[in-house]
């Protein structure tokens, strides 16, 4: 089974790419309304392959093979300095400069070879991400078959989606930072294209532009981080290889964990070995020492790298202050919101931070920042979501908020925290995709209206949508035994755990409170949306016309499947599955093993396997369930039982301007416009004027100078012969005078 891993790893992205190519070429003229078939089949194939891959990877772990690398081709090579040719030249030039000695000793320092291969890798983390991405995208494509029906850009939609799935599967399975960046931007491009799918709508075009630009700002940080990584470590590969150099003693987790099948990393160009990676192999223990005796001192560079990478993660995963693009991205078709802007692409930032766990482990400061930003964003987005009236935007802010939870968990840096963050990523994909698809179903029935004030009591008209949506809401609110309960509980437990620590525990204490308050707010705004949409008196907007009926089976089918997931995945993986336990599947990822090693202060020789109790943290679970139920109760009170109470209760908030603050999204867009966009535009306009008048003016003045000189001398050549004669005579006189002198 293991020998299939390379093939599976290639097939998973290759199938969607092929589908994208087929639809792009044939879609417009031949496939037309059948354009979903190639994509759906390809994604189903990928999904199947991903499931097989998970089992194959699991199988291989029994033989202590945790990392599988497939090298496709070499992307770019820049030959390094210090080659023989250079030495010969320095000898040649030696006579003229006395520094040839210096320069030869220095040549090793100047620029190491740059080499970048297209390499795929599989480990537990990748396998889980691949499974999640392909599963959700398959369901979304089936759903979109019904949702996008009759759209003039039908084929275009499916081509973009297939391209996105290709990029996303590549993003989680590539093996170095450059390729990660490549596909990081590629998913951003797909997001840009899909947000602006209805490009005739100015709002959609603007939202696409905004998404791309805000992501570019994040990528700016990401790129800086990557460059710094390269200048610091001299490599950008995750994977590793010099396994043979470490003796395989039983105590060596680091060793056993990264043993790679040599045949799989065999490279014809580099016999025997591959360059050492940053995270894998013997570098895992190195991470533990980074803070102490790294030449760049106290891990400052590592902190800088972590923070810069986190800027990239903030852009992609919509964390404060770069979260502004995600709510606007709801201008895209709803299946896209479900797939890209809820379940998959926005979790790329979480994946990045999880993938860089050893780096973050080396920098507690960076971890604190990640947690703080995560917790703050969770709270902020929840506060904004309280007063929004657009169903999709409420869900978008809730996505921002839940992503904040995940960062909060990752920032604890503990084994429990990272696992909990990934667990939440996994469960969130199910219930948030479900909620978005449910919202799409509502929108479909309501003739495109998505304002929750305009409809109500839809539970009878849309029974399946209603029940599945309710499941999603319960999961999002974290009610036992739905999926969100388990993962959110794990996150809060991890934060509570960390708050007990002496070092910087106080931060996590506050973050725990923030997380708990967010849990209350989440339950409130989720059920506010639910009650306003499905409960109360039946109200249907004019735009709906005769369409106010349940959606077709192509749409409700995926809803039901996802609803089952939203109910069950949490409990299943909590109790039955082994892949989120400390010694479970996810923790077999080499980078996550670093956490276990880090726990040992004296070094890395005797790694301590952390012994967190992997059971629901009872106190935390009780508190979070209590606040969630309270949130639901308040929502019920305000929007079902006593609507008049809502008015009177929110009056003081309105007076204080808090309501406006929340409704206006804390005016962050306006602040950006005033502080960044408009000043830059003004500067641009000013520079354009400078260019035209100052710089070009100077050039023209230089050009005018000879002309002016000519104009000055022109009277001398007036054509008056007498004047010439006079000058000639004077000249002769002067000459004669000079000769006689």
């Amino acid at each position, binding site marked *: 089974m293991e020998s299939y891993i390379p093939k599976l790893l290639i097939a998973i992205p290759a199938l969607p790419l092929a589908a994208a190519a087929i639809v792009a070429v044939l879609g417009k003229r031949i496939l037309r309304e059948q354009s979903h078939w190639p994509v759906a089949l390809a994604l189903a194939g990928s999904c199947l392959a991903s499931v097989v891959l998970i089992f194959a990877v699991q199988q291989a772990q029994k033989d202590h093979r945790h990392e599988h690398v497939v090298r496709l081709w070499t992307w770019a090579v820049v030959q390094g300095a210090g080659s023989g040719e250079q030495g010969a030249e320095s000898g040649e030039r030696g006579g003229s400069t006395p520094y040839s000695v210096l320069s030869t000793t220095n040549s090793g320092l100047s*620029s190491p070879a740059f080499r970048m291969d297209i390499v795929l890798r599989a480990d537990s983390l990748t396998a889980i991400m691949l499974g999640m991405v392909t599963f959700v995208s398959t369901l979304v494509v089936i759903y979109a078959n019904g949702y996008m029906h009759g759209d003039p850009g039908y084929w275009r939609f499916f081509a973009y989606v297939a391209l996105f799935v290709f990029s996303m599967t590549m993003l989680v399975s590539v093996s170095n930072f450059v390729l990660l960046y490549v596909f990081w931007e590629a998913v951003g491009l797909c997001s840009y294209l899909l947000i602006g799918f209805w490009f*005739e709508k100015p709002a959609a075009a603007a939202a696409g532009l905004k998404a791309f630009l805000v992501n570019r700002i994040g990528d700016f940080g990401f*790129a800086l981080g990557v460059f710094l990584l390269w200048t610091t470590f001299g490599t950008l590969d995750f994977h590793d290889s010099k396994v043979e150099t470490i003796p395989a003693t039983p105590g060596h987790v680091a060793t056993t964990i990264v043993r790679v099948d040599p045949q799989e990393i065999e490279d014809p160009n580099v016999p025997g070995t591959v360059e050492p990676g940053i995270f894998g192999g013997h570098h895992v223990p190195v991470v533990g020492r980074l803070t102490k005796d790294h030449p760049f001192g106290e891990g400052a560079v590592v902190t800088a790298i972590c923070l810069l990478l986190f800027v990239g993660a903030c852009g992609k995963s919509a964390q404060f202050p770069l979260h502004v693009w995600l709510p606007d991205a709801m201008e895209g078709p709803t299946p896209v919101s479900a797939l890209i802007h809820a379940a998959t692409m926005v979790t790329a930032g979480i994946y990045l931070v999880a993938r860089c766990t050893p780096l973050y482990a080396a920098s507690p400061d960076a971890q604190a920042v990640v947690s703080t930003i995560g917790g703050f964003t969770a709270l902020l987005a929840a506060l904004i979501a309280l007063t929004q009236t657009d169903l999709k935007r409420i869900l978008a802010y809730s996505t921002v908020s839940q992503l904040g939870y995940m960062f909060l968990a990752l920032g604890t840096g503990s084994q429990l925290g990272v696992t909990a963050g990934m667990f939440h990523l996994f469960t969130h994909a199910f219930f948030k995709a479900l909620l978005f698809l449910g919202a799409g179903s509502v929108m479909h029935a309501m003739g495109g209206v998505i304002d929750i004030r305009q409809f109500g009591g839809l539970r009878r008209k849309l029974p399946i949508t209603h029940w599945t949506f309710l499941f999603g809401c319960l999961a999002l609110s974290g009610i036992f035994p739905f999926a969100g309960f388990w993962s959110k509980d794990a996150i809060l437990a991890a934060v509570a755990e960390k708050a007990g620590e002496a070092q910087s525990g106080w931060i996590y204490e506050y973050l725990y409170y923030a997380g708990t308050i967010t849990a209350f707010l989440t339950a409130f705004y989720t059920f506010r949306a639910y009650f306003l949409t499905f409960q109360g008196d039946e109200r249907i907007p004019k735009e709906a016309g005769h369409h106010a009926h349940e959606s077709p089976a192509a749409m409700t089918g995926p809803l039901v499947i996802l609803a089952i997931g939203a109910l069950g995945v949490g409990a299943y993986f909590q109790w039955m599955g082994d892949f989120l336990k400390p010694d479970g599947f996810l923790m077999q990822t080499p980078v996550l093993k670093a956490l276990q090693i880090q726990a040992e202060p004296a070094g890395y020789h005797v790694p301590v396997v952390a012994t967190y109790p992997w059971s629901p943290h009872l106190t935390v679970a009780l508190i979070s369930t209590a606040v969630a139920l309270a949130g639901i109760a308040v929502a019920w009170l305000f929007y079902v039982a006593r609507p008049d109470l809502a008015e009177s209760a929110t009056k003081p908030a309105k007076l204080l301007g808090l309501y406006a603050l929340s409704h206006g999204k804390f005016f962050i867009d306006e602040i950006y416009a005033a502080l960044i966009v408009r000043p830059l535009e003004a500067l641009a306009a000013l520079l354009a004027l400078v260019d035209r008048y100052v710089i070009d003016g100077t050039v023209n003045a230089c050009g005018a100078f000879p002309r002016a000189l000519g104009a000055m001398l022109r009277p001398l050549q007036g054509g008056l012969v007498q004047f010439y004669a006079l000058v000639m005579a004077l000249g002769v006189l002067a000459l004669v005078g000079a000769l006689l002198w």
Partner: protein
Amino acid sequence: MKTVLLITLLLPAAATILPAVGRMQARCWALLASLATLVGAIVLVARFHVGDAAFAATDYAWFDVAGICDHAYMVPDIRFSIALDGLSLWLFALTALLLVVAVLVSWEAIKDQQSLYYRLLLLLGTGMLGVFVARDIILFYLFFEFTLVPLFFLIGIWGSEQRRYAAIKFFLFTLAGSVLTLLGLVAIVLWVWHASGAPAMTFSIPELTKYLQAHAMPYRLQVWLFFALFAGFAIKVPLVPLHTWLPLAHTEAPAAGSILLAGVLLKIGTYGFLRFNLPMLPDATAASMPCLLWLSVAGIIYGALVALAQSDLKRLIAYSSVSHLGFCMLGIFALNRVALQGGALQMINHGLSTGGLFAIVGMIYERYHTRRIADFGGIAAETPVLAFFMVFMTLASIGLPGLNGFVGEFLLLMGMFQRAWGTAVTEWTTQYRVISVLAVSGVVLGAWYMLSLVARVFFGPLRQRAPCTHGRHAEPIADLGLREVLALVPLCLVIVWIGVQPKFILDRMGPAIDQLSSQAMRAADEKEELTPRRQAAKDEGKGRMGERKMGERKMNQEKYEWPKLSTCLPLSFSASVHSPFPYVLFLPSSLPLCGFAPLRENSIGRVIPRQKPLFDNIWNSEAERPGADQLATELICVP
């Protein structure tokens, strides 16, 4: 291969002689000739082997002076010498490709005097190809200046409203700089001749490079010559603030002119830096590194911001060229391997993507007869294929991974980071770090102005067009035809190819660039080594330097400082007397003497006795004439 190169080079020019009559024939001939050129270029690319330094070389003595004036004190050995190396190969191929695109784009757009137009276009083609293959300084300069003439007429006759002004400004501006460049180039030739003591004065670029790499010029002289070469090349590039001819010329030129101007002619500047400044004047290059990096990054940011404020499609793209060429220059002057490769690759990339953008803008103009961005809106609904290509080229231009722009930008920024963070901390380090971070921010600005351009022109609701004065508003807007698609598809294919597999190009380019830049890179590293801020700490920590070297180093630290103004003034006076600049006067007077001898085989190796010095006016007798070393010491020791 020798013949292929010769034919490919001369074919466009030869095609202009053909007696083409009627408009159909003119453009068909032009297309055929440019296609044949492209085929030749492809054959050359296919046959090129990694590491070839003088591929498909042709070498003939050209101005055979020795035969005419036997008593000449010096024998200018000007040769018709052409060859390809890893760097020029790609620029050559790029030119051939863009020439085809230019002809296809002009197909319908040019209605008047077609025969003349296509002849000028093809002549321009030969001029541009020649610049990249020339291996003789005079030949290089001939082609270098020759490109101006056809372009001058192309802009001046077929341009838009301000065409005359633009043509004259373009011509004079670039000419002003390149005259100084000629001065510098000839001074290099004369210095080498003087220093080597060889009877024949070689103009061969490889030989000069080889000599200068073995025997460096005195530093001060290098600085002066660097400035002279800089004048011409920096205007061509163009570096801010010498760029103002560019937006004007780009905007006023016909579409084909803009394509070739942006795609190829700007590269002549960066190519000049790579071909002459880096290998021949390495110490001056290293010394000027901070200055040029600042200018480059200023160009990146400034070009991007000014582009943001433009209201004219072509002007916007023209300013984006300023920004992108800033990236190229940044890569070149970061002076390390990765960055240089990135910078050189970025030259090709910019040619492809900006050439494509100008072609598309030409197509838009053909349909809508306006270039004002405000006149457009939502035209993607009318012309989806055009919109597809526009978005594609935009993405290539803003460096989307998977397309070509990313590879170049990524490599050169990586190299810049290597320069800023990777080496020892010196007094320049902080500056480098600021520069590198600013340069990366240029990537964000690039996405801003390009994507908002696309959004304003192509997206949103379809804008009702104002009644047009040409009375053409009634006719429906057609999407791209087959000819236009065929013009753009090759560009797109190459863009994707470079994005996915840049190794093919980098492998071939690498050795050539290493060869050209090794001295400059070494000098840059030396400079880093000579001016470390944390000197003491480093010495204690690593014990790398002995005391003797410390002393030596201190003494020679001034080597890489800029000459101060107080020293500059006497120096310039002294240089005007002692330096080889006056030699230049010799050239114009000697060329008529030489005459144009028919091409014949090399006559190097004939020993010409030095009987009659021509320089009596400078050094009164043979005895007083200083030798090369003495000259060098004099130049350095001027206060």
